[in-house]
Every structure is written in structure tokens, then in C-alpha cells.
């Protein structure tokens, strides 16, 4: 396969925990892993509101927002970030998520276009591949 020039472009990703949740082990590992996988990583820091996360994503012009919550609030916070992105001109920005997400909640989030939804024990490789795959297909329109 010949390499297309845009494949050399760097993925910009915002890693965020939109809510009252200090469990940052996962996001800090992911942020490092995304960086080592060649992405430009922006970390929201702790305790931002969904509003702040959406604003950061638009201001920083990222390709993807990766959300993580382990506090059980994903059904309100994740959709809220997604909705705010759409409202503030960031409708193109992809949203992926993870944390402690019960099976029953997954279809609702997937329907909103929030994908991944990885739980504890998922390999970093799998998460990175998912992000890369979505960005290539949906942001860079590669096949």
C-alpha cells in the first residue's frame, strides 16, 4: 500500500474526565500511550465541566475527544459533551469513551456516536487502534 501524505498528519486528541471524578490513573496512562503512539495529546486536568471540555475541544481544534469516567455519571456527562460539541461548532469532533460502563448503557451511548466504551483491562493497543481507525475514516475520509 502506498502511503498517503495525510497519514503522516498527527492526530490531535483531548483526554478528559468531565465530572466529579478524581480516578485519573486510566487517563494518565492513556495520555502517555496516545503520545507514545504519535498523537498530540491535550489533557483537560481534573474536574472540568462538560462545558469546559467541549470548549477546550473546539478551541484546540482536536480530532477526537476521549472521555473517561469511573464514577457512574457517564450517561449524563458523555452525551452532554457530545451535544455541546454539536452546538458550538465541534460537530465533526469524534467522541470516544471508557470507564466503568454497564452493558445496558452501551447501546444508548453508541447510538449517540460515542464509541469505544472500553472497560478496565482493555489493551492500550486496542484503544489506540480504535481511535486511529475512526480518525482515518471519519475525519480524514480515508477508506
Amino acid at each position: 500500500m502506498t502511503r498517503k501524505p495525510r497519514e503522516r498528519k498527527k492526530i490531535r486528541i483531548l483526554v478528559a474526565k468531565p465530572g466529579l471524578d478524581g480516578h485519573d490513573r486510566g487517563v494518565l496512562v492513556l495520555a502517555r500511550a496516545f503520545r507514545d503512539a504519535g498523537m498530540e495529546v491535550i489533557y483537560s486536568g481534573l474536574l472540568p465541566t462538560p462545558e469546559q471540555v467541549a470548549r477546550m475541544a473546539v478551541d484546540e481544534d482536536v480530532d477526537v475527544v476521549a472521555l473517561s469516567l469511573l464514577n457512574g455519571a457517564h450517561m449524563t456527562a458523555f452525551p452532554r459533551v457530545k451535544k455541546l460539541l454539536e452546538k458550538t461548532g465541534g460537530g465533526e469532533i469524534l467522541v470516544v469513551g471508557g470507564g466503568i460502563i454497564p452493558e445496558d448503557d452501551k447501546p444508548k451511548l453508541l447510538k449517540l456516536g460515542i464509541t469505544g466504551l472500553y472497560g478496565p483491562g482493555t489493551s492500550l493497543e486496542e484503544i489506540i487502534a480504535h481511535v486511529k481507525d475512526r480518525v482515518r475514516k471519519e475525519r480524514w475520509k480515508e477508506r
Partner: protein
Amino acid sequence: MLRGDGGEAYWKRKVGKVIAKRKAAGPLYDEKAVRDVRQGVKQWERVLEAWSKGKAERKVFQTASAIPLKPLYTPADVKDLDYSETGFPGVYPYLRGVYPDMYRGRPWTMRMFSGFGTPEDTNRRLKLLLQRGETGLSIAFDMPTLYGYDCDHPKAHGEVGRCGVNVSSLKDMEAIFDGVPLDEVSTSMTINAPAAILTCMYAAVGKKSGVPPAKLRGTVQADMLKEYIAQKEWVYPPEAHLRIMRDLMVFCTKEMPLWNYISISGYHIREAGSSAIQELAFTLADGFGYVELGKEAGLKVDEFAPRLSFFFNSTMDFFEEIAKFRAARRIWATVLREKYGAKDPRSLLMRFHTQTSGASLTWQQPLNNIVRTTIEALAGVLGGTQSLHTNSFDEAWALPTEKAVEVALRTQQIIAEETGVSSVVDPLGGSYYVEWLTEQMEEEAYKYFDRIESAGGILKAITSGYLQREIAENSYRLSKRGEAGEDSVVGVNKYSVEEEEKPIETLKIDFKAQRRQIQRLKQVKKSRDSAKVRAALDKIARAYESERENSIYPMLEAVAAYGTLGEIIEVGRSAFGEWKEPILL
């Protein structure tokens, strides 16, 4: 240790001493015997080599903290052992246990952490656990409560009752403990930034049911240093929270002598991705910080140190965990006596609670988690814990169901009553490997104390992000090891199954909890005497302004008048501002 003023010489000297001691010969083995053992080991190594010849290349063996391991430990590895420094259980330096009879007298306290939804839901769960023979209560709070927001605050939206019970005012605490005999139980509350407020609320509930504060038994976590290091549930900058902790220490020393107003916690440091060595070192360093805080408040060390207790993690590297617990006890006793001049034996003995590791639970093949929890619990018991929480197998999926909680409690009961491990005190004491590893952990911890002191003390090490970065680096190391298959996780990177896991039944929490809580809060605000609340809040504000006033007394007044958690926290927010974490990437 707290502010990095002048302790450096002690830690440097101590590191040197520990290293030198380990190299020297001790009185237990004579030199000739050790030489013979060494000779024997050399011969045996040749046997080993011949045995292993032609077999597949061996992996590198090390503990989870990356301490390299030999295939065999012998008296030559612990030739420095001096039994006068090992000692007897219940006697300084408490290496072998804090009580003379340990579990022969009575088993550890089986304390299961619980709390979800509304106060009524939690009340039902608590009563169920009491009925099933649990001997201590433990309450988990939801995120808004932990961060000091009332249930009707915009930031609380969607989070009320999600991963613990919501408490916005005294009314909620009254509902949680309705019908629970406060003079008979001891209650542990996992609460930090608002710990003083929850202590006041517990005292108020006690008062209403006729139990005076002096008789109340229990624990609030209230360990703010580890919040900045690991769990990250803070409101104000470190100095402000320390000031309130200081007030609480002084207040409890006088008014609630049976209340453990702080539980110095390594659990979260470990869950955040630290190694066992880091958990040991950072937790004890925090402990020394609190001793210095108490002294700053004008208390004598023996007045308050007996009330300090600890909380550790127990995870999968069985022997390293046991060595960690043993080392922790000896370090605490030694430093409290040598550096802080404690004399009362109760100041020197380290009591601790243990919880099995949440991070070790896997989402895949969840029933395997019962086995993991059993092994971790056993390590806690062999390490001499005073109380134990065992996680439920479904917790990588959601909050535990009642069935799963029951299995977790039964796990402890089986260890206590069927295995015989509680018949003998410190049964692994004297194992060449365990004694060597105990000394190794101890040495590594002292080296960290020296590094922290050199970094300017705990507070500096937190505000600069040093400790947080140390943990993040270790956690990334562990993730990469898991990814590369260097650390096995059964069902995840080994023996995984292709087909989709069938979902297990999990606990559902409905959103009604939030509506009901908001409704109750409205009622409370309507029926209380607002002027009385305002006056009490103003008093707290004045206490915060003056270094010499104790803020807990006006806090009691505010709570009793149904001032809310959020209102009281807000007073501090105006006085001290909010904390912003240093950049960690």
C-alpha cells in the same frame, strides 16, 4: 517531613544505618554457619544450572515493585537478623503484630464498604450487613458529597447517589443511621475534604439518640495529603485543608477520644498506580507529616498518636504485600520513638485496615475475581491487619449486587474460621524470604523518605507534582508490562476467551435518588431557622480568619441547625479559594 524543615539529617543517617546493618553479621547465626550456607548455595547453584539446562529461557523474576528475586533465600540472606529488632507481637517494634494474641483473641473486623443511592437505601444495606454478622459499618459517599456539593448543585447533576450515598444535610445522616445502635457499632466513613463536617453530623445524630460524642466510635478518612497525591478529591489548597484537619485533631483529642479522626491511607496511592514500595513510603511519610501537624497544634505526640490509624491496599504479589505490612509496623514504631519522642506504646503500634485491590479486578471472566480477592485477603491477614474489606467480584462492572457482597464477606469468614491461619501469630515470621523482603522494603522506604525530605518535604513534593509523577510513571510501566505480557493477568492477556462475555447481573441505580434527595433538601431548607444557620456559618468564617480559633465548634452549630454540607464547604471556598493541580504530563 511535612514542610521540609530540618529533618534531612535524620533520614540520611537512617538510610546509612539500615544499609550498614544489613551488611553486618547479626547475633542469630555464627559466621562459620553463614559461610557454610554460602558454600552450600554455590554448590546448589550448580545443581540448579544442570537441572535447568536445555529448558526454555527463563524469564526475569522480580516483585511487582521490580525488586529482583533470587530463586532461593537462605540464612545467608538474613545473616544480619537480630531478634531483639524483630521482637514479639504486641511489643516494640511490633514487626510481628500489634497485639500479643492477634487473631486468637478475636478475628479481624470484617468491615464491608457500602453505600449507594438514597440514605434509605444505604440504611437498608447497613442493617442487612449487621444482621449477617458484620462487625463494623463502613460508608461510601457519592461524588457530590466527597467534593462538597449539595445534591441540587449543577455540578452534582447525574452524580447523586451513583457511587455512594448522598449527604447534603444532617437529615440525610439521620436517615442513614435510623435504628442503628451507635453505642454498639463503630462506623468508618470514607470522606476526606468534608470529613470535619461529617464528624459533626455523626456527633449530632449521636446526640439525638442519646449517645454522647465521647462514646462514639468510628473513623473518618480525612487524609488530605493522599488526596493531592492520589485520590484527588479536594476543595481547597493543601494548607487550608491541613488547617481544618489540625482543628479536628485538637477537637477530637478533647471531645471525641474514641474517634479516629484520620485514617492515613495508602490504598488510593496504590490504586492510582504506585508500587508497593511507593505505597509504603508515601503513606508513612504522610503519617509523619500528620505527627508534625499535631505537634504544630501544640499537642503532645502521645496525646494524639494513639488515634492515628492506617489503611493499606492488598494486591496480587502475595509475599511483597505481607512484607510491606510487616515493614510498615516496624518503621512506624521506630520513627515515632526515635524522631518524634513518642513513649506511650499505643502511639508506637500501627493499627491498619486493609482493602483488597479494586484495580486487580478484571472485567473479563469476572468470577476469577473471587479467587483474586481471596488471595489478597489472605495476604492482609498474614500481614496482621486489624480490619479487612474484601471487594466483590462484579466491581469492575458496576457497584456490587447484594449476592456478590455476600460472597466477599463469606470469603473472609472462610479464611477466619476454616483455614487455621489465625491460630498462630505472624506465621511467616522467620521465613528467610519474607524476612529478607521485609528488610528490603524497609530500606527502599527509608530511601524514599530521604528523597521526599530532600525535595522539600511532603507539601513541596505535592505542590511540585513530584509524588504524583512518580506514581504516574510507575502506573505507565505496569500498563506496558501488562501489554507486553510480562505480567500475566488470567482472562485478560492469558487464557482469554474469544466469544463475547455474557453480561453478569449488576446493580442498577435509578435516577430517582437524585430527585428524592433534592426534594428532601428543599424541605430541610424550608423548615429550618435560616437566621440561626447564617449566624453559625458566619462564625465558621471568622474562625477560618483567625489562626487561634477552632473551626469545629461553630461547625457543630451549623450542622445542628441544618446548615448544608455545600453551605459549610462554601464558607471555606470564599476564605481559601480552590486548588488547582500542577501539570502532570
